[in-house]
């Protein structure tokens, strides 16, 4: 039996930094092999699925927005989609376009936050973006300017950046004036340039040579890169509706986490998020984003989780470009919202949150109150796959010094931009070597 320096180790991170919410990580290495990996999620449970019971269907977008302050629009949009599905309501194309514009704002804001403030410092061995600013102030300022434009889109369409107030089931309370939307064009053009610089910047980072055999799950739309709608597809050929997906996705409770673990019935763990979206939909990216991806060395799919930062940067280019297209084509929806007629029914809605597929399913009573709610946030869907990634990274990095391996484990978790607050029911690293 080997008792060398690295044969038995315990690696532990009590509180993972630069993730949204609270979590930790624990890895045990015995006889030079990874024995256990757990991503501990000790975010206090907030019981959204329970507190939604008995609320009116139109209250769901604002209540579920409070699950996550980083991606509230994702919650609002999935809730609206589910309620409109339940009540068999079709919304005007102009409403859909305005929703997509609002959602582009959230992608730009959330991705810029993750790329510049949460993820990039790892590639420089720095604790945070303040240290990064001491090294390269222009880069951090560029990231903050990008984030600002994302917030500006959310404020213009949604009324405010965190927990927008203008969204309602069926559409919006008031359609923004054409002048207010037109004023977004110039900031978005500058943001698109900054996004292209971001792609070049992150493409130059050094990446650990790791490839994982992911089962990718994302919305899919042959005609356009998915954000607010689409069917659910996978790298194994799945093609189903959000309601169909709700039946296939199985959630299990594990002792070390307040987030539920998801797997696809009969197929095991899967991954949602930028890598999955890109792998299933890169052919649908508009020319500018496709060129940026190609110049950054990305093929039709990317299976190196550390390079998710490059895919995220490409998605910022896409979101700025798409937002500009929507701004130029804007016509206010009239009326701004469709009317829903409540009925006893079940409805499901799935949209692409910046960090992955977000599914809501509601069972409604005849009076329009919520009888039961199920919410599958991207991070709880990704949690088991993140543990698989950790196993891979620790196995291939056993010769690294303790501090370096611990940092790499943390980075492995941050690769997937986990939003722990999001994991309604959901991280901290401990690597233990025995």
């Amino acid at each position, binding site marked *: 039996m080997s008792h060398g320096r690295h044969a038995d180790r315990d690696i532990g991170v009590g*509180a*993972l*930094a*630069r993730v*949204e*919410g*609270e979590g930790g990580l624990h890895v045990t290495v015995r006889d030079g092999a990874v024995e256990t990996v757990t991503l501990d999620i000790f*975010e*206090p*449970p*907030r*019981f*959204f*699925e*329970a*507190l939604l019971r008995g*609320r*009116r269907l139109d*209250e769901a977008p*604002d*209540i579920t927005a*409070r*699950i*996550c*302050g*980083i991606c*509230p629009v994702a919650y609002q949009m999935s809730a609206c989609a589910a309620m409109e599905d339940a009540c068999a309501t079709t919304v005007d194309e102009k409403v859909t376009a305005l929703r997509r514009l609002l959602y582009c704002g959230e992608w730009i804001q959330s991705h810029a*936050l993750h790329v510049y403030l*949460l993820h990039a*410092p790892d590639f420089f061995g720095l*604790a*945070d973006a*303040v*240290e990064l*600013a001491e090294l390269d*102030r222009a880069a*951090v*300022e560029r990231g903050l*300017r990008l*984030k*600002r434009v994302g917030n500006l889109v959310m404020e213009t369409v949604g*009324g*405010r*950046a*965190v*927990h927008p*107030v*203008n969204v309602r089931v069926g559409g*919006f*309370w*008031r359609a923004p004036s054409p002048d207010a939307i037109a004023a977004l064009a110039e900031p978005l053009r500058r943001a698109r340039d900054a996004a292209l610089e971001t792609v070049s910047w992150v493409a130059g980072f050094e990446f650990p040579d790791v490839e994982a055999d992911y089962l990718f799950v994302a919305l899919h739309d042959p005609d356009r890169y998915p954000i607010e709608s689409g069917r659910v597809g996978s790298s194994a050929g799945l093609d189903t509706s959000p309601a169909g997906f709700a039946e296939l996705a199985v959630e299990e*409770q*594990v*002792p070390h986490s*307040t987030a539920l673990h998801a797997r696809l019935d009969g197929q095991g763990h899967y991954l949602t998020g930028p890598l999955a979206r890109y792998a299933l939909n890169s052919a649908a990216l508009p020319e500018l984003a496709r060129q940026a991806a190609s110049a950054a060395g990305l093929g039709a799919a990317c299976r190196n989780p550390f390079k998710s930062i490059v895919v995220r940067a490409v998605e910022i280019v896409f979101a700025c470009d798409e937002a500009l297209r929507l701004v130029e084509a804007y016509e206010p929806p009239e009326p701004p919202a469709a009317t829903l007629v409540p009925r006893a029914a079940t409805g499901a809605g799935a949209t692409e949150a910046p960090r992955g597929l977000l599914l809501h399913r509601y069972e409604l009573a005849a009076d329009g109150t919520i009888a039961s709610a199920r919410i599958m946030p991207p991070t709880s869907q990704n949690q088991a796959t993140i543990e698989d990634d950790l196993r891979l990274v620790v196995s291939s990095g056993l010769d690294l010094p303790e501090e370096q391996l611990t940092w790499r484990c*943390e980075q492995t978790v941050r690769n997937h931009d986990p*939003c722990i*607050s999001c994991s*309604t*029911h959901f991280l901290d690293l401990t690597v233990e070597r025995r």
Partner: protein
Amino acid sequence: MSAASDRRPTLAVWKFASCDGCQLSLLDCEEELLAVAGAVHIAQFTEMSRAAVEGPYDLSLVEGSITTYEDAARIQEVRRASHRLVTIGACATAGGIQGLRNFASAGEYIATVYARPDYISTLATSTPIAAHVPVDFELHGCPIDRHQLLEVILAQLAGRSPRIPSHSVCQECKARDTVCLLVSRRAPCLGPVTRAGCGALCPAVDRGCFGCFGPAETANTASLAGRLLEDGARRVDVSRLFRTFNAGAPAFREESLANEPRPTR
């Protein structure tokens, strides 16, 4: 710069049960963030930095409510390590949306979400920070307003009172010339009883205020509830209106309970 030679005041940001949106408001101060990071030493801010400096801290910002035994103990440690402690947002100041459990039994909530309730340890209630430790200032909002947050940080570090209005959203509508939804359309609006600070965002998009900033100081909620009922609102909807993100604030809690539908005998 070593911690010993760094004379800048230290700032710590703590998270309890919450959505992260209020601490995000600090990162949302895009134009001011690097200036703030230059003026204060951000010693503890897990969402932003891997580095953590031990206390004591000159100023702690606390987001989130207390919902677990561990957090009830942790807030005591945070208080002991902090010279000034400011709570930010509806979770920290009123218990947040997760405070709706205070109207139900926690066992019922756990069983709805988890197949194995025995793995989950949680308190039956979600309570504001001030219910556990003395708080130097409470900044309201769901989410808080980032300009108000900057004002509070600057005021606390300068040792002066923050200039934060205590009047209602009504006055913000008047200031921006928004037509009164309650009067002109009989739309349910909590503007007359809700603390100012958002800039009356909802009425500006033709939507009644839904009380994100919690009760204003002299809120006459009973009078407003009477008016909403006269205008045709159902009692259960009036109860729901007061029972959201600030349901734990006494004025909203009482009005919500007063309008709760009672079982008929």
